């Protein structure tokens, strides 16, 4: 069913440990077990929401209900009058800077004169019980004057009469890309595409514990993605020097970008400093939907021009990203969408305008795939339309235009490491397709004989525990049909479709950012045996970074016993756990520190001495190293040209779907993927990343959307924000290539994001193939297929000479 193949012929040689027999099976290249694995599966892992101190009190947040309003007054009196309430704070109580932000400091710690999105924090409360804190927050009286909300991003971007969400206008960044000047071609396809607002849907809500310290500072234990950038924003708001704000990573229940921005960090610290008590804050699920940024919804217009043989002559595109009320990482998201806006294809003439705008919609920022996801859906949809217009298969049109090592991106940057896209596509296309279901044999999938006594058997495919009935292969299994056990079809109206998707993602921070990580590695004798302690500030958010650091230390030092310390700010920044960058950058730092330790040991070591003897004689050896990937450069503000990316990664997907075309319900039958990861560090963890990224992309294609109307979120819960279940995510066929990138440690290529890009367009293409509909928007909703999809059937603007 499901399996991963790794090409043993490419870059798969094992690193050998230095000590005899040591570190061999748990080093780089092996599926070393995760130290947190068993704890998480058995429910014993301590997440940030489990933090506890005996004398702690609870914080809660009052959030504004309006997408746009002026605040006339805030009265915390009623809250302070309630029993058990220790503090109720507003913007007046912020000790330092009033604003924070990843890129621009435009986000108020607590709203002052106005709120700009539904759910913006206005006041915070500490009380001796979480429920008391919530009620006290609700008792605070805020007088709002509702103002016009800007909710249409197109208007925000282009209509001069549109109110400004912030002084200085609504366009956060406009990034053009200009290459060549010939925008004529015999075949032209145009399309308008839309991507809905996806949520990261991590399971561990925003939470942390702030503990006031005797030196006037604060210790914050928090689930985050980047301890140092949190601290760099928190400390100024608290009016404290950075060294008095110490962060320790608490157990993180998923991130996917949603923890790059601050949530409760400053609030908990303010309450702790004010009350002198440890303050814990935990968002509820509903609050969480308002407490973090989402993926930018996008509206995109594309025009592809090609020769009759399908070779691209030009691409014109307008990409409009709705950043919502605050800047967050919108500028970088725009940079990605612009620089990767034509995808991994060779295009001689390019005209792209990518915009990120302010509106009064929920703030949007980082999410797995980061700007590249949105563009990928549009350009891949266009490639399918081009294939159709040129009479080519979807695979062939992509192969004809595929980049390879030496190709130029739209930014002019030359891809200077392996990028075997054409081969990846051919390999994908050659993979066997899942068998057509037996139900095609007859005109209708007939349930087994019925009658009262047997009617249940006819449909009791799963037993009560939900396990597939044995021998169900012969009869169609409802679990295999669109709709599942909800039994919307026995095969009627079901059509199969196959679709392909290709994506290219930049790995690491781009556009001139000083992207580095720091590692401190110490080797010492513990209980008479060598032991390695690795300390970094890198956030393990569930992806397996702790394990990879252990593996690197084992491989580099030949010592089996390795501990990775809980990440904190006692060591230099590791950068963010995002942009698929931690194996690369923190992995690089750990490797560098290990090698420095190894060199010292080599000097210290006397002839014939074992490592233990050296350590016994010379004492512990410790080294700290900072690792940087090669420099990147800004995009030219007018032409978009520049070597803006450190590394590029490719993934390709094939999706096979069954669609009930009458009801618009979809069952993804299989996802197949080929990804080039440069070097496999941990096969099992890698497979998890590819499966997970593919599932998240499938979710965007078919169901995941924060529905926003007039600036208000309609579905802030997992009742109505749906993410794929095990019955939605099919078995995967995965092939991993390992063509090393000479610039990267071990030749590795970041792997977490690329599958998130290509699975979405692959699934959408498969649904289009099954239905014959244009379906220019994801998520594709049942009514798009069953009711409305046909209205996109004929698009004006296409021409083929």
């Amino acid at each position, binding site marked *: 069913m499901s399996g991963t193949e790794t090409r043993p012929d490419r870059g798969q040689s094992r690193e050998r440990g230095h000590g005899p027999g040591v570190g061999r099976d748990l080093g780089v290249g092996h599926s070393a077990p995760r130290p947190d694995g068993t704890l998480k599966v058995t429910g014993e892992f301590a997440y940030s929401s489990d933090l506890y101190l005996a004398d702690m009190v609870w914080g809660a947040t009052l959030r504004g209900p309006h997408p746009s309003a002026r605040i006339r007054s805030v009265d915390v009196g009623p809250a302070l009058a309630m029993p058990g309430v220790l503090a109720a704070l507003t913007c007046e109580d912020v000790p330092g800077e009033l604003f924070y932000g990843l890129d621009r400091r435009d986000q108020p710690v607590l709203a002052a004169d106005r709120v700009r999105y539904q759910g913006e924090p206005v006041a915070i409360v500490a009380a001796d019980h979480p*429920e008391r804190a*919530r009620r006290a927050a609700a008792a605070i009286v805020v007088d709002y004057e509702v103002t016009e909300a800007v909710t249409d991003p197109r208007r925000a971007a282009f209509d001069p009469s549109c109110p400004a969400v912030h002084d200085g206008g609504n366009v956060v960044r406009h990034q053009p890309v200009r290459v060549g000047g010939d925008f004529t071609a015999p075949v032209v396809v145009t399309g308008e595409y839309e991507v809905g607002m996806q949520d990261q849907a991590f399971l561990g809500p925003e939470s942390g514990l702030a503990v006031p310290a005797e030196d006037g500072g604060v210790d914050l234990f928090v689930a985050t993605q980047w301890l140092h950038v949190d601290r760099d924003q928190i400390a100024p708001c608290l009016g404290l020097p950075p060294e008095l704000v110490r962060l320790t990573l608490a157990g993180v229940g998923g991130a996917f970008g949603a923890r790059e921005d601050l949530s409760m960090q400053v609030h908990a610290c303010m309450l702790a400093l004010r009350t002198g008590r440890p303050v814990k804050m935990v968002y509820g699920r509903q609050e969480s939907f308002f407490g973090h940024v989402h993926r930018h919804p996008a509206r995109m217009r594309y025009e592809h021009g090609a020769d009759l043989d399908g070779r691209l002559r030009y691409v014109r595109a307008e990409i409009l990203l709705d950043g919502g009320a605050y800047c967050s990482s919108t500028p970088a998201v725009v940079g990605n969408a612009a620089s990767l806006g034509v995808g991994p294809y060779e295009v001689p003439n390019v005209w792209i305008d990518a915009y990120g705008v302010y509106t009064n919609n929920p703030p949007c920022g980082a999410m797995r795939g980061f700007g590249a996801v949105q563009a990928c859906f549009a350009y891949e949809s266009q490639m399918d339309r081009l294939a159709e217009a040129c009479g080519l298969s979807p695979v062939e049109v992509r192969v004809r235009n595929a980049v390879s090592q030496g190709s130029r991106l739209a930014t002019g940057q030359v891809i200077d490491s392996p990028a075997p896209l054409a081969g990846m596509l051919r390999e994908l296309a050659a993979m066997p397709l899942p068998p057509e279901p037996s*139900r*095609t044999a*007859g*005109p*209708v999938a*007939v*349930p087994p*004989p*019925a*009658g*009262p*006594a047997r*009617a*249940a058997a*006819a*449909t*009791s495919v*799963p037993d*009560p*525990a939900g396990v597939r009935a044995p021998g169900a292969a012969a009869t169609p299994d409802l*679990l295999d049909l*669109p*709709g*599942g*056990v*909800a*039994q*919307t079809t*026995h*095969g*009627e*109206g*079901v*059509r*199969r*479709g*196959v679709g392909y998707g290709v994506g290219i993602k930049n790995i690491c921070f781009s556009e001139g950012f000083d992207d580095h990580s720091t590692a401190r590695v110490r080797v010492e004798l513990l209980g008479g045996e060598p032991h390695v302690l690795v300390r970094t500030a890198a956030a393990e958010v569930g992806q397996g970074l702790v394990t990879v650091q252990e593996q690197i230390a084992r491989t580099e030092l030949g010592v089996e016993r390795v501990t990775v310390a809980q990440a904190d700010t006692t060591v230099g920044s590791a950068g963010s756990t995002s942009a698929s960058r931690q194996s690369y950058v923190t992995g690089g730092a750990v490797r560098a520190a290990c090698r420095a330790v190894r060199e010292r040991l080599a000097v210290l070591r006397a002839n014939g001495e074992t490592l233990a003897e050296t350590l016994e004689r010379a004492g512990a050896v410790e080294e700290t190293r900072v690792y940087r990937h090669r420099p990147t450069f800004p995009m030219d503000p007018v032409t978009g040209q520049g070597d803006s990316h450190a590394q590029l990664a490719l993934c390709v997907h094939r999706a096979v779907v*069954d669609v009930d075309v*009458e*009801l*618009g*319900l979809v069952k993804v039958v299989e996802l197949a993927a080929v990804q080039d990861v440069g070097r496999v560090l941990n096969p099992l963890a890698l497979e998890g990343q590819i499966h997970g990224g593919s599932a998240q992309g499938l979710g965007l294609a*078919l*169901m995941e959307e924060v*529905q926003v109307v007039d600036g208000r979120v*309609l*579905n802030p819960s997992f009742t*109505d924000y*749906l993410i*794929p*279940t095990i*019955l*939605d995510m099919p078995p995967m066929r995965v092939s991993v290539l390992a063509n090393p990138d000479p610039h990267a440690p071990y030749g590795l290529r970041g792997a977490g994001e690329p599958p998130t890009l290509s699975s979405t367009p692959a699934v959408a293409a498969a649904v289009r*193939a099954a239905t014959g509909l244009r379906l220019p928007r994801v998520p594709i*909703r049942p*009514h798009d297929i*069953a*009711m409305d999809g046909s209205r996109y059937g004929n698009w004006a603007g296409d021409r083929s000479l």
Partner: protein
Amino acid sequence: MTMDFLRPATWAEALEAKAERPGAVPVQGGTDVMVELNFDVRRPDALLDLNRVAALGEWSAEEDGRLRVGAGVTYARLIAELGDRLPGLAQAARTVGSPQIRNRGTVGGNLGAASPAGDGHPPLLAAGAEIEVESAARGVRMIPAEEFYLGVKRSALEPDELIRAFWTRPAGGPQYFSKVGTRNAMVIAVCSFALALHPAERRAGTGIGSAAPTPRRAVAAEEFLAAELDWDTGRLDPGLPRRFGELAAGAASPIDDVRGTAAYRRHAVAVLARRTLTWAWHDLWAAGPHEGPHDGPRGRVRRPGGPVAPGDPGDPEKPRREAG
């Protein structure tokens, strides 16, 4: 702030407690109640835990031939123990939430919540079930399912009453439940449809879920079937299921909401009604003369591909698959 937690050990004690404290909120599986408490939708001053009342977890075959199923019988047990006799309800039960929810949740709780999206309701309507409710003051009332649902999350239950059981006849013919959701498991109904054929009475019962303020029958569609279905020969005119679907859709009065549009819901109800009728009719006649209507002549057993109901007659085309 405190909340009393009442734990009656017997049905009589439970009724007394409810009489004394009509504001007390009963808890059976808690899969609705606890969610509401967590979301602060309500703050009752007492919870009335019914889990110690053993009688609620029992079911029995009664003298009049009906089944009396205690309000505390879980979905999981309903599927395992009554799936053969109540196939429509068992199919609905199978679509409720996840295994954990089916291990706790009950039809009694579904009735208590009276959500238009509750999956237990359409099969109860289609089967013509009755709800047995009781109060200490006025004793037992039997409420036909179709009179039970009064509005969105409002039922005919009085504040001092508790739901004791539902009564329904074991299926006398094929039954189907179909539910549209936007993912393939663990999803609240966008809309649903239940159909029960009652061959002995030569009629069919229906139930529509999540497409009106309350679960409701499609009465005109039922009357149409009673008048038009050919119970003598089993012939199914291809236009009949389609017309039935249209009438069922006509009985719905859906709204646009976060789960779907009104137009889609109406369309989907029509498709579900058409398909379930086709399946049920096919089952009835495929089962042979003994299990079909008593006068169904031998030799009219319908097989796949036979002259009757070769596919879904409403389908513009026969089901087919295409790759690419």
